């Protein structure tokens, strides 16, 4: 029978992490509820045989020093963030048994979002919520659970509904969510309640051990110091006043129906071989077939959104990659995005690419009039300009630029889809500049066009664009 009076092994017999001279006593005030709950949790860890994998998360509040007492893995966390920290622990190491131990300010004020969302994800953790309706550590300020009329150091005239809002009832809120498995409110007002609290704590841990999901145990606890009462008065206040606002009971319990293991997640250790294979599967299917480049290309492709100018850039860049060059592609940024033009910059270079953004292209494709207006003057002297003459009404300066006018969209329409006007332009670019041969580009398109039902139309479009340039001589 002597064993009854021993501390459980999950509770340190001496508190080595406390400062000198205080290693045998807790830091809690006389009549405080934390000591009771700590002991019940430590006993449950021990009795359920999970001491070797228990991790205890203590956020800011009077229980910030949980690691003084629990002979388990210990994380101290930021104010309100225990549920997020517990999520990070549990998801990364699903074998661990993770408990967060949080006060009312922590869990129901600054950490409300973390609390609600960990519950909503059904994290397979056990949350112990000590509700004593006051901020203890910082000196007796109003908590989210402070009673209407209760005087605190920040409600010196008593909490009012209008000035401060009503006490927040977390069990009731969380019980509306589909994911949580077990939500209950217990008290420490008398020995019968303490027995119920002990059972609830064990049940919460058991549910986690079985992979049955999220448990939330709210424990109404006395704070004689914060309440300015002696311990018997505080217990009396707890059962007579607090319980009126925070009724004890089970708010949700689907632990019997819950399937064991349903809420277990997977986190596999780093496997170098598996990662190597996975990363290799991301590589381009294009094989390297070098094609010499006489001159670095700085291209800009511009038109309406939906004309495929960005895709045109992606196609040409990948041809450049296959040919063994440095390539870059970037969509328009900043002020260029205004004024009815969508555009992208593509560089194809023999050496390192400097600015990825092309300010002065030597190849410009314009597929609408605003693009012609905006970019014609930026082309370097003697540069190429390709104009969709069926859409643009203007004509570029043929003295300064090498201009190719072709009704790309009309040509594409005849082939069967206006959407391939961009590839008509690609054919025209290759034919006019001679950078890449027709077969070379079409072989590349066969590989990089993902929607195979559109492949033939695209290849016809390329040929049509090429042909249009040849006919123009």
């Amino acid at each position: 029978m002597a064993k009854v009076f021993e501390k459980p092994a999950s509770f340190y017999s001496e508190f080595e992490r406390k400062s000198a001279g205080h290693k045998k006593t807790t830091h809690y005030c006389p009549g405080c509820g934390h000591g009771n709950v700590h002991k019940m949790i430590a006993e449950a860890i021990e009795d359920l045989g999970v001491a070797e994998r228990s991790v205890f998360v203590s956020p800011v509040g009077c229980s910030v020093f949980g690691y003084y007492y629990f002979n388990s893995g210990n994380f101290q966390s930021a104010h309100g963030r225990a549920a997020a920290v517990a999520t990070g622990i549990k998801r990364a190491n699903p074998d661990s048994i993770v408990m967060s131990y949080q006060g009312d300010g922590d869990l129901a004020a600054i950490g409300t979002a973390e609390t609600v969302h960990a519950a909503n994800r059904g994290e397979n953790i056990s949350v112990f919520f000590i509700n004593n309706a006051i901020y203890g550590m910082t000196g007796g300020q109003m908590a989210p659970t402070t009673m209407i009329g209760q005087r605190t150091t920040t409600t010196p005239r008593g909490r009012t509904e209008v000035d401060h809002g009503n006490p927040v009832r977390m069990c009731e809120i969380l019980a509306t969510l589909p994911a949580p498995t077990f939500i209950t409110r217990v008290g420490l007002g008398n020995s019968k309640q303490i027995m119920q609290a002990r059972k609830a704590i064990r049940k919460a841990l058991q549910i986690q051990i079985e992979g049955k999901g999220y448990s939330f145990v709210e424990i109404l606890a006395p704070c004689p110091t914060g309440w300015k009462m002696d311990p018997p008065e505080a217990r009396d206040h707890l059962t007579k006043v607090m319980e009126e606002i925070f009724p004890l009971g089970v708010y949700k319990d689907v632990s019997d129906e819950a399937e064991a293991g349903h809420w277990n997640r997977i986190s596999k250790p780093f496997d170098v071989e598996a990662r190597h294979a996975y990363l290799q599967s991301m590589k381009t299917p294009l094989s390297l077939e070098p094609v010499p480049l006489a001159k670095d290309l700085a291209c800009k492709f511009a038109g309406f959104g939906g004309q495929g100018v960005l895709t045109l850039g992606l196609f040409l860049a990948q041809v450049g990659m296959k040919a063994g060059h440095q390539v870059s592609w970037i969509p328009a940024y900043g002020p260029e995005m205004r004024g009815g033009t969508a555009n992208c910059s593509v560089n194809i270079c023999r050496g390192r690419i400097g600015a990825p953004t092309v300010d002065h292209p030597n190849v410009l494709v314009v597929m609408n009039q605003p693009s012609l207006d905006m970019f014609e003057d930026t082309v370097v002297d003697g540069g190429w300009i390709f104009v969709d003459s069926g859409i643009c009404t203007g004509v570029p300066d043929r003295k300064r630029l090498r201009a190719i006018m072709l009704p790309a969209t009309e040509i594409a329409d005849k082939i069967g889809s206006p959407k391939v006007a961009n590839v008509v332009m690609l054919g025209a670019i290759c034919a006019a500049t001679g950078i890449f041969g027709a077969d070379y580009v079409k072989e590349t398109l066969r590989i990089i066009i993902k929607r195979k039902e559109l492949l033939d139309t695209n290849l016809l479009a390329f040929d049509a664009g090429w042909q249009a340039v040849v006919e123009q001589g």
Partner: protein
Amino acid sequence: MARQFMKGNDAIILGALAAGCRAYYGYPITPASEIAHAASLHFPALGGVFIQAESEVAAINMVYGTAGMGIRAMTASSSPGFSLKQEGLSYIAGAELPCVVVNIVRGGPGLGNIAPEQADYFQITKGGGHGNYRLIALAPNSAQEMCNLTMLAFDLADKYRNPACIMADGITGQMMEVVDIPEPKPIPFDHRSWAVHGDAQTRQNLISSIFLEPEELEKHNLKLDRKYREIMAHEVRHETYRTEDADLVVVAYGVTSRIVYSAIDQAREAGLKVGLLRPITIWPFPSQAVAEAAQKAKQILVVELSTGQMVEDVQLAVLGRCPVHFYGRCGGMVPSSNEILSECERILAGGKN
């Protein structure tokens, strides 16, 4: 060599996977969202963890939980979201946990816009959160470096048990380039001397940043400070381009340095002796290299997408050895290479043009 044509943001996840990162926690924000998209696709496929968190605050605290287990974890965001992570980063640095955090910087302050800026330099290199701590901060300027420097960031984070940050911008994140696919390597660090698993072997370890006694907290801060000095002594990385005979050295990092490469080539064609010094680590800052450049060059020009942040570190390194000029654009305006060239010409002509 296996290659792929990909966005800088996707290359970050490629590097993270090769580095053995097992958990990604994030919240969507433009222009960093592709990182979360890629993580959500690839992490679960390899038995890793992906959570779209309820907030940036929650995401960085999930990182804290996983990192405390000695498992590689990361998060990524853009400026407003990165501001929200400062609390968690201070705790992670205080508890000496390794992790990688990415900031694809956008225009600020406040909601600003989604265009590229480099105005989070102070926040990243000088702290951001409360207390005496530093982030190891790397500034890639290509998709390949987004991958490679992410891998390096994980190793540096583990080596020094400190958060490491990748600072990039909307252009470097959105731009597609050819990336050599990296080879995963075993992680050469043993976490069991400090990580917490709950078992008897790691139970003496404690993940915490609280030191109630002033003597203890001072001791902890001094220990961190020694660590930071060691990082400053050993982990500075920078690159130079055509500086050997340069009269004017331009200091620029990230996307700005890419534009400066072009400006320098144009300047050299015009017969101007201009070179580039690019910090790859922005903390620790390559002060020594800048000081040496200032000995040889007649002038220094700092170009940033900000109203002048890194320029202060350059001035501290130069210590008046030569004039330090500044050229900045901000709000999402990006200078062209011609603009930078004009500025170089103006400075070399004695500032008269």
